[in-house]
């Protein structure tokens, strides 16, 4: 693999995807500590939002310790060089949330949709572009579409105004070939000026390898999080990816040792549980299940006396997609009834 001389934009997920792993309870102090340390390490983009995006506060996904407004308005003024992004899932958040994030000074809006449903993002992508924001189309559960079909959805987002398209492995299901084919299809089919991104989950311990493959196939942006703090077995551990990519001759402009320190000294002590490939997260990656279902399934398993990996397998069989957290308790209730 040759990625030497490639320029990679790193995007940290600790304070958004990491919200899942922290039951959305990250404090303003923790937000400030992590964001300022990432800024100091040279990370150019940091996402700050409820785990399920703007407007994600709900019974279904969990109420965060603070509102998106509080998080964004706390972090943004402290940044010296880093830009702050916010995630928005149409169907959960609306353009009202988008305007709020814009007014608070985010540089980037990432409009996320199930990879087959790009046409729900038109209003949001178009507004974000009109507001002059760096506008990303974020195609989730991208393993569920073949490369050619994924490209068609990506082209829709590009036509609405997205200047960057992500192939998002929400289930941490993709193997390296899967990533290579999809990123290659996007690179060949989208406009040359449209950037490509890859967002991995570490459920099969392939976060770093898949991200390197994405870069080799033409990805410009790589998502990860310091110490991997994220849903499922976490995101691509960013300090590891940064070290490996740098050794391979790519450029990230992120300080290797400072990023290691953020992971080791700030993020790991924040973790409520080890972020690792345990049986449940391995099931996510093996069966292609949305990574943020993990802690919800563990809680439902405990409440109803059923096995969490059975809940997750069933959700995989049902072909659930991101957002269907309500089905976790429903499945647990059915499993519990069957046990009687």
């Amino acid at each position, binding site marked *: 693999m040759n990625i030497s001389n490639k320029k990679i934009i790193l995007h940290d997920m600790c304070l958004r995807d990491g919200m899942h792993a922290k039951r959305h309870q990250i404090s303003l102090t923790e937000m400030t500590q992590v964001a300022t340390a990432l800024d100091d390490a040279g990370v150019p983009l940091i996402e700050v939002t409820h785990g399920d995006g703007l407007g994600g506060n709900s019974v*279904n996904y969990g109420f965060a310790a603070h509102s998106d407004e509080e998080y964004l308005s706390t972090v943004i003024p402290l940044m010296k060089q880093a830009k702050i992004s916010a995630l928005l899932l149409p169907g959960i958040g609306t353009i009202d949330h988008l305007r709020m994030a814009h007014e608070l000074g985010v540089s980037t809006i990432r409009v996320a949709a*199930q990879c087959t449903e790009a046409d729900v993002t*038109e209003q949001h992508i178009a507004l974000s572009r009109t507001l002059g924001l760096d506008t990303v189309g974020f195609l989730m559960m991208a393993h569920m579409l073949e490369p050619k079909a994924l490209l068609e959805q990506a082209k829709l987002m590009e036509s609405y105004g997205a200047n960057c398209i992500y192939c998002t492995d929400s289930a941490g299901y993709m193997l390296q070939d899967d990533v290579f084919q999809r990123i290659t299809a996007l690179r060949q089919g989208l406009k040359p000026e449209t950037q490509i991104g890859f967002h991995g989950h570490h459920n099969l311990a392939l976060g770093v390898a898949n991200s390197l493959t994405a870069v080799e196939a033409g990805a410009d942006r790589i998502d990860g999080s310091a110490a991997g703090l994220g849903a499922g077995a976490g995101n691509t551990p960013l300090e590891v990816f940064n070290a490996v990519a740098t050794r391979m001759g790519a450029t990230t402009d992120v300080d290797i040792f400072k990023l290691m320190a953020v992971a080791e000294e700030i993020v790991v002590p924040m973790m409520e549980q080890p972020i690792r490939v345990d049986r449940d997260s391995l099931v996510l990656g093996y069966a292609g299940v949305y990574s943020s279902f993990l802690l919800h399934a563990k809680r439902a398993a405990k409440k109803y006396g059923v096995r969490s990996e059975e809940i997750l397998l069933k959700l995989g069989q049902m072909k659930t*997609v991101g*957002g*269907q957290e309500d089905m976790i*308790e429903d499945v647990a209730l059915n499993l519990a009834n069957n046990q009687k």
Partner: protein
Amino acid sequence: MVDKKINIALIGSGNIGTDLMIKALRSSTLNPVWMVGIDECSDGLKRAKSLGLKATHLGIDELLNHIEADNIQIAFDATSAYVHGENNRKLQSKGVKVIDLTPAAIGPYCIPSVNLESLMAQTEHVSETNNLNMVTCGGQATIPIIAAISQIQDVDYGEIVATIASKSAGPGTRKNIDEFTRTTADAIEKIGGATQGKAIIVMNPAEPPLMMRDTVHCLTRDEPDQKAITASVLTMIEQVQQYVPGYQLKNGPVFDGKRVSVFLEVAGLGDYLPEYAGNLDIMTSAALRTGEMLAQSLTTKPTESDVTRT
């Protein structure tokens, strides 16, 4: 008994309009005369012609030329929230009563099992706008449950998650996704009785397509009275089943502290789209029931013009 059917027009020849047409053709009080679309090749328009309706692809303006001659008294608008305002204005100018199946929410919300009777009793309410809004498919499926809970005790927060098969979501629904969440959340408060409302919609592309699923989460102000809430929810489900036979309780009510959760599934009748598209049926069946009640009031009560003449 009504011996004369009321002539109606259907605007929007997409999934919802076409499904509604098929149902309206079975009605004993409504007579579908016109189907209005904008796409000559749309399946809905072809089907309308084959079923004996007058059909046009020239949009609402063409219909306006025929209102008096065909004595159209009620129009159902199943286009999109963006064009409903203009459609409504044009129809009102001709004295047509409008049932709005988009989330535009110009007129008062109507959830038949909760407030249709009271809306009909307040005739001034109807005539004030001559427009009733059917909220959203997710709202029709969930607000009855929230109302059933808030009839027992105060609900501080009501949240719904509606999951529909991708195949059942037409372009109107997709362009209207923000309006769906806003309108549903607002109706959760105004009709459901929750102090704060929140709505989430998810589209799922699974094949074969999944049945519409709806989950209701309420946070009650005080400890929930489990027995009374369960009884109220079960009674409400029976009421909805009167016009949507495929409306089903899957799990719950589940109680967890002050949280009350109810898990529902909505199977359609398979009139236009297959039965997985319960989201179509719950909308069209609710609109049809509303139209039939309106038709009854038109035939049994003196009309406004009668009143002004006396």
